């Protein structure tokens, strides 16, 4: 039976499995922009409420993308220095004092500071001693110049398209339901370094399932290691991994150690792109190999995705 096809809406050149925040909009702009960071060294004495004005450069307006406060001993200030941001007309950007650890982040959308503008941070220092910090605004300068080249002449921008935007969408008459399959593998008893193939993973019969991420967790100790390797086989018999250099085993189709974790149990599921299509009532398979004689050989396999139901 042929491999199921996944429809791709457009030809990509970016990397769809990259997290979205890693690829901000580098696109063309009628303005001349450059990456820039303002750093303000500040010593915060022990006191009650303090207001520190921070003056930005006069050469251009500045768009804040990320804000954070650093100290040499970050942990000392994370919970004991509280901050409130106020813009140049006195409008608060935070409704209350917020611990530094909870404020350091990307801002939700561009935050514009006029040329020569002033931002103010109100600070409460609860550490019991004065602290030296750096207040950092990362972002971009925007100049009112023409004929600048945000991209080198003759080149186009490679656009970033996040994974979720490129997964298939339910066609008319269907609806997608988020769904997670969980399969517990308890006390795997395969001999060490011998592959046991074809452990069935049956799908429900109510709707096709589209796998969009996969993870394996230790069944006994949260975030503990597992000591087996595994390989997924789709409902059509396609092995989804091939070892091109099986130097560590005599098995020509060595299992993918990383997939099942070993030392690399992750709190996050591994993104699967393109999505893996499993028909209703289909049966995937898991090939397993215990790779150590000690340790935990029980695990839980999670398949995260959507069920595609027909409406009505």
């Amino acid at each position, binding site marked *: 039976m042929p491999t199921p096809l996944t429809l791709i809406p457009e030809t990509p050149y970016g990397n769809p499995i990259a997290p979205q925040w890693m690829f901000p909009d580098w696109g063309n702009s009628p303005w001349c922009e450059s990456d820039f*960071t303002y*750093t303000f060294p500040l010593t915060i004495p022990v006191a009650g409420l303090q207001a520190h004005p921070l003056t930005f450069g006069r050469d251009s307006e500045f768009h804040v993308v990320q804000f954070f406060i650093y100290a040499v001993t970050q942990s000392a200030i994370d919970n004991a220095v509280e901050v409130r941001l106020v813009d140049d007309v006195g409008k608060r950007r935070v409704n209350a004092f917020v611990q530094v650890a909870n404020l350091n982040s990307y801002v939700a959308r561009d935050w514009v500071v006029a040329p020569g503008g002033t931002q103010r941070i109100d600070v409460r220092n609860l550490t019991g001693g004065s602290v030296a910090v750096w207040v950092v605004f990362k972002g971009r300068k925007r100049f009112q110049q023409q004929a600048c080249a945000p991209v080198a002449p003759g080149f186009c921008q490679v656009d970033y398209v996040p994974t979720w935007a490129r997964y298939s969408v339910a066609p008319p008459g269907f609806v997608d339901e988020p769904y997670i399959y969980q399969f517990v593998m308890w006390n795997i008893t395969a001999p060490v370094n011998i592959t046991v193939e074809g452990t069935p993973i049956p799908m429900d019969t109510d709707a096709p399932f589209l796998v969009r991420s996969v993870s394996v967790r230790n069944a006994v100790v949260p975030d503990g290691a597992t000591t087996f390797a595994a390989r997924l086989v789709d409902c059509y018999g396609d092995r989804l991994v091939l070892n091109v250099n099986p130097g560590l085993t005599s098995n020509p189709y060595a299992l993918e150690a990383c997939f099942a974790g070993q030392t690399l149990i992750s709190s996050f599921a591994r993104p699967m792109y393109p999505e893996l299509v499993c028909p209703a009532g289909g049966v995937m398979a898991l090939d397993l190999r215990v*790779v150590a004689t000690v340790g935990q050989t029980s695990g839980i396999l999670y398949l995260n995705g959507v069920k595609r139901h027909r409406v009505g």
Partner: protein
Amino acid sequence: MGIERHIDMVLNLGTLTAGQIIPSIQLPMDSDAPFVLRALGGYQVTDGGTAEELIAPLPAALLMRLADADGNWLQNARTPGMVSQPQQSDFIPMAKHTIYPARGVAQMEFENLAGGTIEGIVIILRGVKLYPGDRNTAPCYAPTYPDCYSQMTFQYAVDFNLAGGAADLLNQPLAINGDADMVWRGTIISANFSIANAQTNGLHIRVRDPLGKGYASTGNGQAAWLRAAWLFAEPGKPGLWFPELYIGKGQQYSYDLRNTNPANPAAGQFTLEGGKVYGQ
């Protein structure tokens, strides 16, 4: 239309003692194409070249400042946290990319306020090189998707096992099957439990396309070694290429491996995450 091709420009900074300032250090660009800087990354190696060597994120108190191709600083002062990231293979995106011409120079300065020595500092300028032409005419390896195609999620796995202190393993083939093209989007690495003292911290890697051009450079065309444990990562967030690497069916990439741990083997597996692309 030009071609963007992933590249890591690597500065091996070495050791900074407590309080030390390096006021100006220059990373030369390669001569084959302009470089577009889009993100910063880095790591430190403690006890390098010993059995205890470890890779760790750089501390936020390593202050850094970077200039554009014209020598204009992109920060108003040396700034903390420019290259510190919580996890290997993370990198810190620039809000706006910066273009360096071929044979240009990226000037940087550093200051160590961490209160102690920072060993084995490696700074990575991550971005793309810009090649003229299109997918058919560009002077680089640049195949791409056919007009009509389907994709299937797929991984190629590569086992490795270098004894401690072993000689470099050079020009290892990484062949793609002839049934379909492969899109290599990320990489996961792990050590092998069944081999005593197996580790990946000492493993360095260089990857090359079928034309022999690498994806990391120390400037002036010199191929750079990168720690595999930084370049690659864990399942939840594979070490990424951007843009993805597209490999034609039946084509062969190659890679070099080096283990700088003199005692313990670098043994395990890395997997090429991505998909097979079938033309219609």
